[in-house]
């Protein structure tokens, strides 16, 4: 059960190659990975394939259903704007929000957690106390506050959503770092004269990357979902821009008369979220040394 220590490092090709192989033999994970790449590609290229612009109003085709007979393949909304282009644009923005917010929460969470776990003692106690207090606050409140203080800035929205996601990440990394702290190779690094910063970034951080990747993959869909919730409240992306969340919110209001307005972005969002969740689960299984 206990893997040899060299199998845990970032330079251990065996673990990573094995994990990669296991991942690719998992059919659900491969499908999820393919779906994610396909959606990313579609979000980048797609809008250029269709002649419509995301904010152009087609007065002759207001709220028409999906059809290949006109230029609006997936129909139009109440203002006659093309849903194919708008959904792909929304996918692009939702994906960007998910990835940027996850990166922010990764960066903050890893550093915070690694420092707390490695330092231990009083510093650790204090840092964990801060996390406890912050997680006692309803985080939606922070985001609302940030949007009213700094205005509706898209980049700020990314960062603030990410800024609320780091608490769990920090807890995970801290737990791992505490275990690593007692290991021989850290002792060797200390004996070799490495400073705390070097030990944290060169020896601790690379060794916690496994659980972090898994959690990050599961954070992306959470962030996308959170953005769509903000957009539902009217605090997210502003017109005429669109995210999957704003499109779904608009679609939900027109569900009885124009169901495709809800279905098109809803299906894309569901595929995206399900794919990331499936991928995260598969990564966890693939990286779990115990099971293999």
């Amino acid at each position: 059960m206990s893997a040899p220590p060299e199998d845990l490092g970032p330079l251990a090709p065996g673990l990573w190659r094995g994990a990669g192989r296991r991942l690719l033999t998992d059919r659900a994970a491969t499908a999820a990975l393919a779906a994610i790449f396909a959606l990313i590609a579609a979000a980048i290229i797609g809008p250029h394939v269709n002649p419509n612009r995301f904010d152009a109003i087609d007065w002759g085709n207001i709220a028409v259903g999906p059809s290949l007979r006109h230029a609006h393949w997936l129909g139009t909304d109440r203002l006659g704007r093309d849903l194919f282009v708008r959904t792909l644009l929304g996918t692009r923005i939702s994906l960007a929000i998910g990835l940027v917010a996850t990166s922010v929460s990764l960066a903050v969470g890893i550093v915070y957690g690694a420092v707390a776990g490695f330092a231990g003692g009083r510093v650790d106690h204090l840092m964990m106390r801060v996390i406890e207090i912050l997680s006692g606050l309803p985080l939606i409140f922070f985001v609302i506050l940030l949007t009213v203080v700094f205005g509706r800035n898209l980049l700020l929205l990314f960062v603030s959503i990410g800024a609320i996601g780091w608490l769990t990440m920090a807890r995970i990394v801290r737990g791992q770092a505490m275990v690593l702290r007692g290991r021989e190779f850290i002792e060797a690094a200390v004996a070799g004269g490495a400073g705390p910063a070097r030990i944290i970034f060169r020896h601790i951080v690379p060794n916690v990357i496994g659980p972090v990747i898994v959690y990050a993959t599961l954070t992306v869909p959470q962030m996308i979902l959170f953005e769509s919730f903000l957009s539902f409240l009217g605090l997210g992306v502003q017109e005429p821009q669109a995210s999957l969340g704003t499109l779904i919110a608009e679609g939900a209001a027109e569900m009885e008369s124009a169901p495709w307005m809800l279905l098109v972005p809803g299906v894309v969002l569901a595929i995206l979220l399900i794919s990331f969740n499936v991928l995260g689960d598969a990564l966890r299984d693939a990286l779990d040394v115990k099971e293999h």
Partner: protein
Amino acid sequence: MHNFRYFFGRLCGAIPTLLAIVTITFFLIRLAPGGPFDQEQTLPADVLANLNAAYGLNEPMWRQYLHYIGGLAHGDFGPSFRYKDFTVTELIAQGLPVSATLGAIAILIATVAGVAVGTFAALHHKSIADHASMALAVAGIAIPSFVLLPALGLLFGVTLHWLPVAGWTPGSAADLVLPVVTLSLPPLAYIARLTRGSMLEVLQSPYIRTAFAKGLPRGTIVMRHALRPALIPVASYLAPAVAMVMTGSLVVETIAGLPGIGRYLVQGALNRDYTLVLGMVIVYSAILIFMGLVADAAIAWLDPRVRLEA
């Protein structure tokens, strides 16, 4: 006795945490530009000055803070700035029972059904039943409530006429069905996944193999021996989930037209209704801290090896 002292200590330790949360919230919300009396038409300066004076907003910040904390010590959450003639205590006392009832039923369903589905999936590991339940669980996590609730309303309310789409009559169970289903689905999905994962791990442990080897029936092994340790991650997950669900869902309550407290936090923050936001934060944090305590007690009960230490 040891346990009693531990929990008493934890409860006392929660007071400074709560105080820190109140303090941070108090000053954070004051950072936001604007005030509670900003409206589309600006008020005449002297009217605004009178309003500010009446609510004590003209005093220095530290005095307002001390005044608020002093009120809290007497259980007074202060008046709402936006809902005129209502105190925050009244608003929360009216809405919390609705939200809490809804949340409690939803969490109960989610826990029972989630554990059942997760255990079932683990016992049929890698079968079609396992894959199907996990696919359902992923869908439960991935479908936002503002899609699910309208969709359910359309199906069961508008098309089938089985249930009311929205509305609230005290005592009517039919009004609660769709909101409760919507609220319970995401936690149900999480609990099913957690239970499946931990159950798979427990089922591989030597003592379970021993139990199989000595010929105990499978039902007994699962119920008597495997379930208890497998529930530990569920207990940790439930603490924040209960706090979240019991304090109401803005989306569900708005769409279903329920008079809960779900909307107060967001509305309060947008309207600069300072006292209402603080009241909501206190309710949420207090439930969260208390549930954390309950979860730790539950974990100590589920796994007797866990030692509670302050």
